[in-house]
């Protein structure tokens, strides 16, 4: 059977279209919807990185200011807590509220003890950056071979 090349082309076009549709299924990342857990809406998402002598934790905390956030460290235990207030203006009618409010608390057990006196915490564009230097005993050491 002779199939014209344009038919094949159209077939691929349809496949691409379906592929796009499927991709869109996952694009509700970060959006509150029925089938997601309640927890995910109020808990900030975090990233964790390990560098040679420090750890780094990043957390998504849009709308939160310095005073709304608490960071507690004890040995290798870290706790981030905070309260998200509603920023709804006075005298306005509400059409849509997707952004959650309320307080949250999240705790982590770090792989090693950190030096709590040298921890740096910065808040920028709604992201909390925590640099946690490892405790002296937990730092990597270079062993020279004799």
């Amino acid at each position, binding site marked *: 059977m002779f199939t014209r*090349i344009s038919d094949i082309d159209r077939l691929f076009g349809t496949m691409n279209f379906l592929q796009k549709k499927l991709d869109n299924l996952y*694009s509700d990342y970060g959006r509150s919807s029925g089938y997601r857990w309640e927890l995910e809406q109020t808990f900030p998402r975090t990233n964790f990185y390990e560098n040679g002598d420090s750890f780094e934790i990043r957390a998504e*905390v849009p709308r939160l200011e310095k005073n709304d956030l608490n960071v507690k460290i004890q040995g290798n235990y870290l706790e981030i807590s905070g309260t998200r207030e509603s920023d709804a203006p006075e005298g306005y009618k509400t*059409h849509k509220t997707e952004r959650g409010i309320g307080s949250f608390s999240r705790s982590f057990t770090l792989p090693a003890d950190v030096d709590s006196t040298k921890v740096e915490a910065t808040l920028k564009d709604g992201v909390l950056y925590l640099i946690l230097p490892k405790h002296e005993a937990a730092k990597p050491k270079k062993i020279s071979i004799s």
Partner: protein
Amino acid sequence: MSDRKEIAKKEDKSIEKTRALRSAIPTVDIYENDDEILLHADMPGVKKEDISVNIDNGTLSLSGVRRFDNKGVSKWEEFSDVEYVRSFSVPQSIDVEQVEAELKDGVLKLHLPKSEVAKPKMIEIKTV
């Protein structure tokens, strides 16, 4: 055959691919009063210069790109580089010239003022 076309696209064949930026839908709150419509969108990690707001033909489209520079070995990653995209249809009564946007702590606040014509007017009732 003269109308020869490539069946597989070039980019699908090349070995090295640049990872497409994942798109995400920002969560929004929308408020309205007599003078304006107010839109708050959560876009953590997006810088001011990486946001674009377009109003064209009754469609408001938001786009914000965030990129992190990652150092070290990641143990877990719950969020990543992302492009926040969302569009809304806005009523024609919005005064496009007067739209203002501000970004603070990862929250984009858009003020969409209504044009004079669209504002509600109190009609005085005369007694005859």
